[in-house]
């Protein structure tokens, strides 16, 4: 399990470009936003109007000691209440739609972009980072936008309405209320900032504690062998101590804040009571009007108290937005030219009828390659492979053999020089054309959640069940699959986690062979698997290689031995090339690599209790 360290949000300047993009996403939900804002306007008006109705009832019914028209009053009151409840439903529902919809759309665009981005992007960017952009950032952005809109609209309408109402009824009392507004605003901004900052500290302390638990559990065995239990517990105490301290500090800030604004609010009420009381006695203010002010003074200041929080939320959502939008705006390094797209189509709408068949002649013509900002991995590399040939690539880690394979797959393109397929620069055809003719098996087989059948069918989406089984039989996977309780419908689990490495390997072979590729690329596994599976895999490889141009980053002796040509790569150069026999006689690098490999394989066989295969 890996925990991705989330970056902290810092205070920052307004970025108009980001907000324009956010606005564009929001506009996709124009209808919902209009409904939502209308609901908030009605709700704000109702919240101003209900205390007015109360004050009317006090003056008109209680004051005049009569009940004529009480039914009409009751009905109007009820309508107001129900429209308020209706608004609550509407804004909750609509804000939810805007929120989920916006994050949906952002994710969709980002995912599409991620399907186009080059491998250089994936090499630089940890999956955890991408996931954080796609999940928490997209969510936070949409969440803040939708709900801030709710709070801001209501706050604005309510305060404006209440102010108008108060000034109409009695401007002096309205002024009293207004007088308390600035101190409440100042106190709110001050404390909300403090509270936010201390909650950030709490979150930080919390993630440190999670990390410590993670380490305490994962490292428990090592801890025992080093007798560090007590020291670990002491160090943990320091962490929890600081967590407690920060949490209490954060709690105290809010414990101070709410009583202070409450007291400040009571100054307004007290002022209204005093001045209003005097006016009731000598200037004809009605009791109903007085009670109107007294009621309003209870929640007139609410929007102001929330304002500081909303703005800091918006600020942090800007930071989230910048990161997601950067992702959406990243440019892929490898693209098909417009002319190629016009002829062959793009990944989402291919023009398959225009595609030529792929024979499998591959030529590297003076290919030089360097990773962005790195040293040259290949330097004027030349290689010519005939259709149907099997090429084994051997060499140390970092020798450049994986780069050669990546270039053939067009996961990367040459920095200079050309790669020709069937005599034509592969940049003159679409990426999808090449990839559709490519069979590819990774060292660590990558499966997807779903059934075995679905996983094999990944190689050819139009394959029938019979064809899927045929492919499985061809690579010798049918045996173990049919022994499973649900056979081909067995769920492989996340990433294929419910299967053993050998089983995953066989399925990935079946998947590769199903698409009847003309070019085959195989990055052999280094890790040893049990001998029976090993034999199955060997058999599978032989089947797959028949009649295809194949490149194998080879680790297994048998594969190496059976290759048509073996290339020993060192520092981006072919230092030895030829058949197994030829290279063994040479007694050079290959000889050494091979004998080491031979020793390891035999040893593993002996140690796992199997007779040495002769």
């Amino acid at each position, binding site marked *: 399990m890996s925990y991705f360290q989330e970056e902290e949000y810092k205070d920052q300047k307004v970025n108009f470009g980001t907000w324009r993009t956010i606005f564009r996403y929001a506009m996709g939900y124009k209808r919902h936003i209009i409904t939502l804002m209308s609901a908030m306007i009605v709700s704000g008006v109702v919240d101003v109007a209900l205390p007015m109705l109360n004050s009317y009832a006090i003056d008109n019914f209680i004051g005049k000691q009569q009940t004529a028209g009480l039914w009409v009053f009751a009905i109007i009151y009820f309508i107001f209440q129900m429209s308020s409840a209706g608004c609550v439903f509407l804004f909750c529902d609509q804000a939810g739609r805007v929120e989920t919809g916006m994050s949906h759309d952002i994710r969709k665009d980002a995912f599409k972009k991620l399907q186009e981005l080059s491998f250089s992007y994936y090499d630089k960017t940890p999956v955890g980072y991408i996931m954080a952009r796609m999940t928490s950032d997209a969510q936070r952005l949409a969440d803040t936008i939708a709900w801030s809109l709710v709070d801001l609209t209501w706050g604005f309408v309510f305060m404006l309405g209440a102010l108008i109402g108060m000034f109409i009824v009695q401007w002096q009392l309205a002024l009293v209320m207004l007088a308390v507004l600035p101190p409440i605003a100042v106190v709110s901004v001050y404390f909300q900032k403090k509270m936010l900052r201390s909650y950030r500290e709490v979150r930080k302390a919390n993630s440190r504690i999670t*990390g410590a638990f993670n380490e305490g559990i994962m490292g428990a065995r090592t801890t025992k062998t080093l007798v560090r239990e007590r020291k670990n517990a002491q160090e943990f105490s320091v962490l929890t101590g600081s967590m407690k301290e920060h949490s209490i500090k954060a709690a105290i800030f809010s414990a101070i804040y709410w009583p202070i604004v409450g007291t400040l609010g009571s100054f307004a009420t007290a002022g209204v009571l005093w001045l209003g009381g005097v006016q009731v006695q000598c200037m004809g203010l009605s009791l109903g009007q007085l009670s109107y002010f007294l009621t309003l003074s209870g929640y007139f200041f609410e929007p102001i108290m929330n304002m500081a929080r909303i703005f800091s939320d918006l600020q942090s959502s800007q930071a989230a937005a910048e990161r997601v939008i950067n992702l959406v705006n990243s440019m892929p390094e490898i693209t098909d030219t417009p002319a190629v797209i016009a002829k062959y189509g793009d990944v989402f709408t291919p023009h398959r009828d225009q595609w030529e068949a792929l024979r499998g002649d591959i030529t590297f013509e003076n290919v030089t390659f360097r990773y962005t900002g790195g040293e040259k991995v290949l330097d004027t590399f030349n290689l010519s492979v005939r259709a149907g040939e099997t090429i084994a690539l051997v060499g140390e880690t970092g020798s450049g053999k994986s780069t050669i394979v990546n270039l053939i797959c067009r996961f990367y393109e040459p920095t200079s020089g050309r790669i020709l397929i069937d005599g034509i620069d592969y940049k003159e055809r679409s990426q999808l054309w090449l990839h559709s003719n490519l069979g590819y098996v990774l060292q660590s087989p990558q499966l997807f959640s779903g059934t075995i059948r679905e996983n094999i069918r990944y190689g050819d989406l139009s394959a029938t069940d019979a064809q899927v089984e045929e492919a499985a039989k061809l690579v010798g996977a049918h045996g173990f699959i049919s022994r499973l309780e649900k056979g081909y419908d067995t769920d492989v689990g996340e990433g294929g986690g419910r299967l053993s490495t050998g089983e995953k390997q066989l399925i990935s072979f079946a998947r590769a062979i199903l698409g009847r590729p003309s070019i085959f690329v195989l990055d052999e596994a280094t890790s040893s698997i049990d001998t029976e599976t090993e034999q199955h895999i060997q058999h599978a490889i032989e089947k797959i290689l028949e009649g295809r141009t194949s490149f194998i980053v080879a680790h297994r002796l048998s594969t190496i031995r059976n290759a048509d040509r073996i290339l020993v790569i060192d520092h981006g150069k072919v230092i030895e090339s030829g058949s197994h026999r030829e290279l063994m006689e040479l007694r050079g690098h290959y000889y050494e690599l091979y004998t080491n490999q031979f020793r390891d394989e035999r040893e593993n066989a002996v140690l796992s209790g199997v007779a040495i295969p002769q």
Partner: protein
Amino acid sequence: MAVPEKGRNHLNRYRLKVLWNFSKGSRWLYVISLMIAFSTTAISFIWPKVLSFIMDSVLGGAPMAAPAWVINWINRYGGPSFLASNLWICALLLIFFNGLNSLLSYFRSRFTATAAESIALRMREALYGRLQRLPYDYHVKAETGDLIQRCTTDVETVRRFISNELVEMFRIVAMFILAAVLLWQIHPMMTLLTLLLMPSLVIFSAIHLKKIDRQFSITEQADGHLSTVMQENFTGVRVVRAFGREAFEEEKFSTANDDFRAQGVKLNRLFAYLWSINDVLAAIPTLIVIVLGVSFAANGQLSLGEFLVFVSYQGMMMWPIRSLGRMLGNMSKTMIAIGRINDILIQKEETSGENPQKPDLTGEIVFDNVTFSYDEKPVLENISFTIHPGETVAILGSTGSGKSSLVSLLQRLYDYQKGHITISGVELTHIDKDHLRSRVGIVLQEPFLYSRSILDNIGITQDVRDEEAIYEAARVAAVHDVITSFDQGYDTVVGERGVTLSGGQKQRVAIARTILRENDILIFDDSLSAVDTQTDAAIRKALAQRRKGITTIIISHRISTLMEADRILVLEQGRITEQGTHEELIAQPGLYRKIWDIQNAVEQEETAAGEGA
């Protein structure tokens, strides 16, 4: 005590007791908080009464309706008319009440926060400490993710409940009762009407919250599914591209993305129903109170002040009751969380046995007919051998032969079932575990490095930092040059938040860490497997100079490593099949000889195999 702890852990009564035990030391804070909560509630009931008095008697000129002592007291100072001309007194009174309540609620928040955070701290420390002291075996079998969840999320659930809602629940109930009593005094019939409608609020939210919970977990599943689809796409990007499946993936993603949105919209709509229906349910009693109250007040059954008091009391009763349903839900979640936390706390810690001894461990190690098994099938059977002080013994074993189990017995990571193991003549099971482990150094094949600097990792057993000793140990482990080649050298942080070391580098850091301390016995459990042969030899040479006189056990299958040992044990399927020096073992057929042959006869065999192919 008839029911064992494990059996009782699902009982809420028992879980409450667990919580009660954790609250030790913070209980008085809760008592004070509760008292404050009750008094603020009482105070908040006074103000509407005062307002009513002002409205009726001070401003309205009606006869005073208040307790006799209040009336007397007011009359003594000039009666209501004095107050009417000096309204600032009432205003001050209002500020006083509010100020008092503010002050009290400040203390309440502060006390509950302190209490809850202290309890959370105790829980975390208990969990961490317990996890550190649980037996080795527990950690071999444990599911890391689940344990971490219990230690973080579950503790947080408990903390949240006890920091706000615990006291609040009592307050709401007190408030409800008080409001009901006071309302009854003003107008029994109206009180009855409002009270009758109250239960519908609680019942509705309780039922609806269950629905929301269900939808919540559906939404979470959709979220999880979406995450899986994305994660698999990003980690499997090579496969996706190589098969040209971008469009297919996009469609798969869209389905998951659309579903997550649909479930999110549903969840939101449920919330929309909850809040709006709650509002409707609360609106009806309010409407009844207002309409009836107005009509009673209009025909003189109620005074204006009483009407206002009634309306505000009814509001005070209604608002908190709406959150009671949610709190009850959280309480049951808290109980479940406590149960999950306690699952860990009731596990038995490892002990050294009775009267553990701390003998000198430099003597002979004797295995006498030792049999050991994890469950039923024995992993080691009738193992007997002796290692003399200062000797180096190498172990060669096939996969699953029990060689790692054998060395882990020497640190008492497991205890054997039959036979005897003695060090310096003392039975291993009588030796104090901490003493044993701090004198017997073991380097595991896949060592764990802590996520801190390399310096701290190697020096982790040092009480006082001695950097020279650390560098020296790193040199012996042939990792000093590697470390100094890093940008930040020894300050490089490893692990999750820092640099990832290769398997071989990790092994060497672990070796440096182990040899740094003073050991009587050193064990290398295949801990040079990821290091190349030359480095391996260099490390062993440096070690040999350093560890003079230390008994050493090395597990390996490198002949070059094995042959340098004083003696070699060959282990197959839990039994010792061969024993002797290199020369002795190559003179007889067996596993050792086979490995030896392989490493020497590559050439001939290869030629033969080549011809056969």
